[in-house]
């Protein structure tokens, strides 16, 4: 995969996404709030936390340990395509 591929951890609303991003940042991950592309959301308004590909596994493990819930996880390729993952 391209090194510029990122992952979008979907959240139920902006506040939840900010809470996740805040938690992950505190744990040393680079995590930022983003609005997912319409291809994922069906054009609806939604929020996600963007993390780097190589940090994804550890980031999800950290979230799992914290008990903070999140939605689906999508790979977000540099060309704009997205792909639902099994995470």
């Amino acid at each position, binding site marked *: 995969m391209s090194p510029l591929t990122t992952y979008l951890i979907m959240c139920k*609303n902006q506040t939840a996404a900010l809470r996740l991003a805040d938690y992950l940042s505190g744990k040393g991950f680079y995590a930022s709030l983003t609005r997912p592309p319409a291809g994922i959301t069906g054009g609806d308004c939604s929020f996600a936390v963007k993390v780097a590909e190589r940090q994804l596994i550890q980031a999800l493990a950290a979230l799992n340990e914290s008990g903070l819930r999140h939605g689906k996880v999508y790979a977000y390729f540099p060309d704009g395509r997205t792909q639902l993952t099994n995470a």
Partner: protein
Amino acid sequence: MIYFDNAATTLRKPKAVEDAAARAVGTLASPGRGAYSAAADAAETAYKCRALAANYFNVSSPESVVFTFNATHGLNIAVNALSKRGERMVISGYEHNAVLRPAAALGAALAAAQGGLFSHREAIQAFDRALTNTTRVCVVNHISNVFGFIQPIEKIAEMCRDRNIPLILDASQSAGAAEIDFDALGAEFIAMPGHKGLYGPQGSGLLLCRDAERAIPLLYGGSGSGSKLVDMPMDLPDRLEAGTLNMPGIAGLYEGLKFVASEPRILRHESNVLNYAADGLALNPRIKLFRNSAPGLQSGVLSFIIHGIDCEAAAERLSERGIAVRAGQHCAPQAHLTAGTANTGTIRASFSAFNTLAEADVFVNAVSEISRE
């Protein structure tokens, strides 16, 4: 001006609050409405305010901290969510119209647990009698806006938990001064203004919520999420936040929260100024004070009557001398009924972290002059 009307709103704010609110105008856009920096900055500011409030009031997650426009807004949400027409709502004897009016509009069957002023024992006994198995909800004013009476909310909350009765706490006069532990109290909702004891701008407030499923929206509109849904989103805080947030208010409120979190002795200071002023007024036989100096019974709110002088006239004369107080019913007729001041109303002086003993001296002298007129 000597400002002693902090129970209405704290006029003097920490400079950081003023600066943050002013800065927000022109720099903070609407959170959740765009991906550009001004929207992201707004989102970050709103989140930090929620997170700080969650930490300060011991709420498990920032999502449970809902922004409102004032405590009245929050109380209307809470009362509307938990009350039904004809069903029993237990209140204290000191509730504000922000509770009484929405309850009346909903047709709730009000039952007042009336105890004497400044008596925890009577309050607990009254609630013990009132909280029956037909009670749908209990609403309690933590601190009376008329008399400063600090109600025994820990005990009342315990009774509600034991009897499985949802509790709504009106923290209008206590937030920022007295300790409020949302998790420990087990309240369903706690409503508070941002612009009184939290020293934020007017137009700001917080509603602490326990359960998203019990949160019924009062306003319907854009929430910045789930736009294709016909109904408001199911999750907090979005479920209860329709429309554009008051970002200058929230930015200022964040600074206000930082101020009160760093100043743990605000209530003690207010009580000290009150006791100093009350000691001066007590020397005047023409003045009736509503005061109890025992620890833990009264906040920085002092009501009094000058015999033979209408309370509104007295307040006007104090205003002419550069002293700001409030007079009348204080939007809390129930409190006056309980205390026996429904016919006269009272003059109310209410203190903040910024009031001084020197101001109290000027006030006492002015009241003394007026009482001789």
